[in-house]
């Protein structure tokens, strides 16, 4: 319930539009109630054969209500969709803003790709939270109150009877069937995920299945699960059919009861018989508001699940919080010092860095080498303030990195990583993301330094070429060069390269490293790599393993030592 409350609070700013659409929605159903009521009254009056003048107004009313319903329905749809789109925009911006401070710390350990695509789906689901969860009961409430008042003008027992049945169909039956369906629904969900796993196993592992002639075994396993799934679906179907049957039965019984009480009231002379048909048909029409409430269970569950997942992210405290009085950073930081840095991602995980000390000065080029899992990328994550570091373990010109605002620290660095994201947009847009105000000259300059200018010019659409999802229309090398050009658009003192050539073939790797060495030698460079390629150009190399510094020095020195560096080098190039 809490989730639904928070969701309601989230969409509350749009209460004006929602209110309007609820009013129009109620007017839509109200029109059909009025149409049936006036029509019944019309023929009842006509049966008494008065002069036509006496029923003229009623005829006009019947015609009017015959038209208003369609018009209101149109307006209601328009208004409610308008609100829905406003809500969608709001939800997107909201989610982006909650995600921004907790990225990447909060999404690191969960399967981040899955998490993100599920989250954006969740946002899409919640777009309909108002339309499908909030609006129907509110419209129904207006109608219930309206018809109860209308009935009350004739007799209170009529009003109570109808209100009782409307609530029974709108609330009582849906709530009890929801309760009844809970266990079967859950087993259905479990079975579904079982069968899903089994199907994925069978399809993805088909080559392995065939190689060991196990196809029949898995086909039979899926068959059994499928059979159970079918039975579980049948159980849920019985409950759903029961709900539909009971709701309709209640509606008919309500009409019957209204008729019965009406007859007694007419017999007793407390109401005129001319209204009898009106009472019955108005009651019948009013059920249109409550019958759909039986279908609310599914959207509620969906919204709840989606909301739960999004709020879980929203409730994650950010890994790094700026100190209240943050110092101003001097953009000419001359020196970065790692000072006995030890680090673990969370309390129940082992240390990924232990007693790391080294220094990076302006103009220097430094490489950190080590097998995967050595903790190299963590260094960059900490430098970019994606995670919190212990006090005084990273110093900028002698001052603790924690005292500066994170945004300003990031503005010291141009970053290229193996995971640099390219957007599904044009080359130009991908570059401008870094520096929206960049001029054409800036773009040319940056692409030239990254040595991708020639390639871009060779494209028929040049900078306006669309590069596809994750830049998949480009080759791996072109993607990395584009990422480098983008980082270079930001003229920042430090260049951080996090495995910039991972996943590239040996020739491309060498070419890119050459570009970096030739064109960017004047920058301060910190490069992380697990491949010992092109390192002879670096001023200093730090060799890490299992979170510790094992060796350091220049390439020639390290090759000479009998250590991890030489071992890595010899395995790689045997």
């Amino acid at each position, binding site marked *: 319930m809490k989730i639904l409350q928070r969701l309601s609070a989230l969409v509350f700013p749009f209460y004006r539009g929602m209110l309007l659409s609820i009013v129009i929605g109620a007017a839509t159903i109200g029109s059909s109630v009025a149409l*049936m009521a006036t*029509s019944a009254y*019309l*023929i009842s009056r006509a*049966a008494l*054969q*008065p002069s036509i003048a006496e*029923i003229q107004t009623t*005829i006009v009313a*019947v*015609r009017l*209500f015959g*038209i208003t*319903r*369609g018009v209101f329905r*149109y307006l209601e*749809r*328009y208004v409610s*969709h308008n609100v829905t789109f406003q809500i969608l925009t709001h939800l*997107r*911006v909201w989610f*982006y803003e909650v995600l*921004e401070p907790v*990225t*990447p710390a909060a999404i690191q350990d969960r399967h981040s790709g899955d998490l*993100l695509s599920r989250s*954006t789906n969740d946002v*899409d689901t919640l777009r309909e939270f108002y339309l499908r969860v909030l609006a129907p009961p509110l419209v129904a409430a207006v109608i219930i109150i309206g018809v109860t008042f209308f009935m009350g003008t004739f007799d209170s027992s009529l009003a109570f009877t109808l209100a009782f049945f409307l609530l029974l169909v709108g609330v009582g039956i849906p709530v009890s069937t929801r309760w009844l369906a809970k266990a079967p629904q859950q087993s259905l969900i479990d079975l579904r995920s079982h069968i*899903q*796993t089994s199907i*994925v196993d069978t*399809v993805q592992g*088909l*080559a*392995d299945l*065939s190689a060991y*002639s196990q196809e029949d075994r898995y*086909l039979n396993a899926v068959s059994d699960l*499928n*059979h159970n799934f079918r039975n579980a679906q*049948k159980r849920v*179907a019985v409950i759903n059919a029961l709900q*539909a*049957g009971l709701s309709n039965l209640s509606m*008919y019984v309500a*009409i*019957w009861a209204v*008729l019965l009480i009406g007859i007694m009231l007419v017999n007793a002379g407390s109401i005129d018989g001319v209204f009898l048909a009106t009472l019955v048909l108005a009651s019948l*029409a009013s059920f249109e508001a409550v019958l759909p409430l039986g279908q609310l269970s599914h959207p509620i569950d969906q919204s709840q699940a989606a909301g739960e997942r999004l709020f879980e992210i929203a409730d994650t405290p950010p890994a790094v919080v700026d100190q209240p009085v943050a110092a101003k950073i001097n953009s000419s930081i001359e020196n970065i010092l790692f000072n006995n840095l030890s680090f673990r991602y969370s309390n129940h995980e082992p240390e990924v860095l232990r007693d790391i000390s080294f220094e990076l000065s302006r103009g220097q080029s430094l490489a950190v080498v080590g097998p*995967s899992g050595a903790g190299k990328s963590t260094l960059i994550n900490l430098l*970019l303030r994606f995670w919190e570091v212990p006090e005084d373990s990273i110093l900028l010109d002698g001052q603790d990195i924690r005292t500066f605002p994170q945004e300003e620290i990031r503005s010291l660095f141009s*970053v290229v990583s193996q995971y640099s*994201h390219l*957007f599904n947009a044009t080359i130009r847009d991908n570059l401008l*993301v870094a520096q929206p105000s960049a001029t054409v000259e800036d773009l040319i300059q940056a692409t030239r330094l990254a040595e991708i200018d020639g390639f871009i010019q060779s494209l028929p659409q040049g900078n306006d070429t669309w590069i596809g*999802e994750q830049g998949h229309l480009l080759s791996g090398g072109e993607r990395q060069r584009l990422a480098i050009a*983008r980082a270079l658009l930001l003229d920042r003192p430090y260049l951080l390269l996090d495995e910039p050539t991972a996943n590239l073939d040996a020739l491309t790797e060498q070419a890119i490293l050459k570009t970096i060495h030739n064109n960017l030698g004047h920058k301060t460079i910190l490069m992380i790599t*697990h491949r*010992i390629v092109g390192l002879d150009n670096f001023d200093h190399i730090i060799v890490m393993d299992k979170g510790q510094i094992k060796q350091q020095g220049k390439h020639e020195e390290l090759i000479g030592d009998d250590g991890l560096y030489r071992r890595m080098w010899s395995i790689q190039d*045997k």
Partner: protein
Amino acid sequence: MLDKRLWTETRKHRLLMALTIGLAFLGGVFTVAQAYWMSQVISDVFLQQATLAAVQRPMALLLGVMVLRAVALFGTELSANYLAIVIKSNLRQRLLAHILALGPGYTQSESSGELSNTLMEGVEHLEKYFSEYLPQIFISALIPLTILFSVFSLDLLSGLVLLFTAPLIPYFMVLIGRATEALTQRQWTSLSRLSAHFLDVVQGLVTLKALGRSKQQATTVRIISDQYAQATLGVLRVAFLSALVLELLATISTAIIAVQVGLRLLYGGLDFAPALFLLILAPEFYQPLRNLGARFHAGAEGVAAANRIFEVFETPLPEKSLIAPKGTLSDFASIQFKHVSLSYQERSQLALSDISFEINKGQKVALVGASGAGKSSIANLLMRFVDPQEGQIVVDGSDLQKIDRAIWRNQIAWVPQFPHLFFDSLAANIAFGHPDATQEQIEAAARDAELDDFIQSLPDGYATQVGERGLRLSGGQSQRVALARAFLRNPNFLILDEPTAHLDPQTETQLQKAIRRLMKERTTLIIVHRLDTVVDADQILVFSDGRIVQGGTHTELLEQEGIYRQLQQSFVGSP
């Protein structure tokens, strides 16, 4: 939109279909009866001043009819849903069997994620077609017809009003549907494009943050989302007109009937009871037609899902192998490729062209070359995941295609680049091809693959669940499971398809020992990306663009000018 293929599916469940339609028809009859008794009672009390006691019998009948109507509705819902459930379950099973029969050659060329999705979600998407749309077609015909029949027998004029307005609803529905279909489609496309854009931004958040541009991006999200909303609302303004017209048709027709019978009552041309009867039935008459409109979307969605499902069904199965003449095959002396060419259906280019070579018992044959050169296709052919379009693969003089697949595969252990771990225990994953293996045999195989220590260190040991929902193993560990599978099989012929290509150099070196042990004294075909592992091979075949461009031993090849030497240099040459 009565899809023929989907209609065929209902044939096996005629009883449920008949029950659904029959009960829907009964529901229509009860609707008419309900309106009849209701109008009778009201008329008697209103005009004849009948007392409750006097209308006791029609009141009781009315209640009875109402209960029956609710029961009929329950029955219709239930049988329609049952119908959908059994058809889906049936289709899923057959579709999976078909995919299995198509074999790995098919699943490799399709996205396995998409296929799994079609099996699960795709089939589920048919639900509403069978439970809502299909029955609604019959209901929309039967109930209005029943009502029309009873109205005509009572009042010709009202009957005509209904008769002439009824076809207008489906007519306008189709007309407007067509006019707005393109618009609605456009709206959906831009909606999903917008979602994709948002996902793209969210996925790029770490990069944006590293660039120091993450805060500003919230504004971009808002602007793009708003622009989209404006554009879409413009489209919807037109698309919603369909709702307007349909509602208008139904309510105006009801209003016309009310006014028309009212006026005739006024001048004594009609009695009150039949007039009321007509008024009660008018909305009931239009309701099924409107429901059909509402469920039209479910129908279209079902047909869309069906298209993909039947596309898979229509992929022809590979020819069944003839049983081997000997019935069994215990070992073989040689495998010959004779001018073999292969192309995968959707790619026009040949994956392999005119390949000839020979593997003799006890030999180690290595395949090298760039990715995409056709090396893995050789493994696929030998595993019989695919069959060649041209040429022959001959095993001891008989065509491989004439040997029973399962018997042939029994001779082979295949270690792929990415072995699949099934959601099951480690023991079951190792004993995968041999469910009757003893625990000792399994542990021995794990020891050979140097996996035993790791498994023993796990709290649940060999019973540890791995795969999709279990423990996730690293690349190296998964590969060891595949090696253990191979050790347990103890095959005559070993196929290693780049078993270490995606591993880091350290892990790769550790695995080499177990791989060498497995290769020992076995006929082996090994596909590699690194040359150091093939130095001692009896025969090295160099692939390029689907052809064998060089062949020989390591030393022979090094002496030649060619790709092999270039490859060799690029490994050694890098500092």
